[in-house]
């Protein structure tokens, strides 16, 4: 197992611990926000990829590698911003007291998977720009790559799940 995999597993674990402290009722609000953020990024990355890449070309230049690098930073930065706002801003709490440790840990780990896994995917797709990463990846890296959220979940699934979360939030 290489350093990238360990870093992201530790990051997931940190989210899990944060989930235990905050409670699942609040963590599910963060989950909703992360799903919406991923939907936006996936939609841009698939349905409006060409116009978006043209826009990036104004900043980065016409080269494919440069566009990929800027795209990775834009997507990662947007995801980090949404995560920061979700944790720091007004809490979108779900029904429930959030006292169950198991549920809180699970929801925290889910958020870690969505956040850290997506960062891994976006940066990895651009071949880890400006980071001195050995590209001789381990088998676990290649295995986990196929399980990352942007790799598996297309935008219709993400928006469907986000809408479902919002319904569960308001349903009495």
């Amino acid at each position, binding site marked *: *197992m*290489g*350093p990238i995999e*360990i870093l992201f*597993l*530790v990051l997931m*674990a940190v989210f*899990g*611990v944060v989930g*235990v*402290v905050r409670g*699942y*009722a609040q963590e*599910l609000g963060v*989950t909703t926000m992360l799903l919406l953020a991923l939907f936006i990024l996936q939609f841009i990355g698939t349905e409006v990829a060409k116009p978006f890449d043209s826009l990036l070309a104004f900043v980065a230049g016409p080269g494919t590698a440069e566009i990929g690098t800027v795209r990775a930073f834009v997507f990662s930065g947007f995801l980090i911003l949404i995560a920061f706002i979700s944790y720091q801003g007004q*809490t*979108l*709490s*779900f*029904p*429930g*007291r959030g*006292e*169950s*440790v*198991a*549920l809180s*840990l*699970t*929801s925290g780990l*889910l958020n870690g998977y969505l956040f850290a896994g997506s960062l891994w995917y976006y940066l990895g797709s651009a071949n880890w720009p400006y980071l001195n990463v050995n590209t001789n990846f381990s*088998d*676990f890296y290649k*295995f986990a790559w*196929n*399980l990352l959220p942007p*790799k*598996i*979940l*297309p935008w219709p*699934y993400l928006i*469907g*799940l986000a809408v*479902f*979360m919002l319904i*569960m*939030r308001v349903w009495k």
Partner: protein
Amino acid sequence: MGILILLATMMAIFGVVGYLRGARSSFVTALTIWLLLVLLERMGGKASSLINGLNFGIRFVLAGGLQALGGGSNTTESVDDVIRRMGTVPPIVSSNSSAVSLIIILLLATAVAFVIGGWGRFRGKPSGWGLAWGLLSGYMVSAYLLGPLAAENGIALPLPLGVSGIGGPAAAAPSVAPTSGTGLVDRFMQLVTANAIDSTTLALAIVIGIAAFVIFATRFTNRSTKKG
């Protein structure tokens, strides 16, 4: 180094949970984990047979086996009919995957230990002793899981009395300890890859899993009177 980081991370998670639950709850959880690990040691190579036997039993019940056992003038033929109707039940875990079945049982045992330790009578205020017992629980579970990987890298992770870990002298199955350099993580990945499902099914499984989790968490647990 990576193994030690994973070990420390798992210990930290267990430690935080232990701290929040209190000393008594964490002690009960640690004790339960230790007892279940000792039991797991005694099972050895029977772990995969147990899992496959459970799978057969569940399918037998679902196929109407209980009715066949319980009634009818010719009970033996009814049971045979049920078994014949079930056909060949493929094993969930092969006999060569004893380590995988041990891991599955270990994770279930850890969940059981947490449920027992989380029983209302044991829970108390957050405490430092809870943190300590939680760290011990995390060490036992992760050392048991990561022991073979650590040994391959020259790191010794001692386990408590009565527990020697996967591939230790108490384990009966000869195929448990990977000696050719492929660790447990590699074998887990091979197991998943061998039963690989397409990305659409995986996406649906993840979406349904998240939805089910949200329904369970918001509808079937204690609900507060206020929202947001």
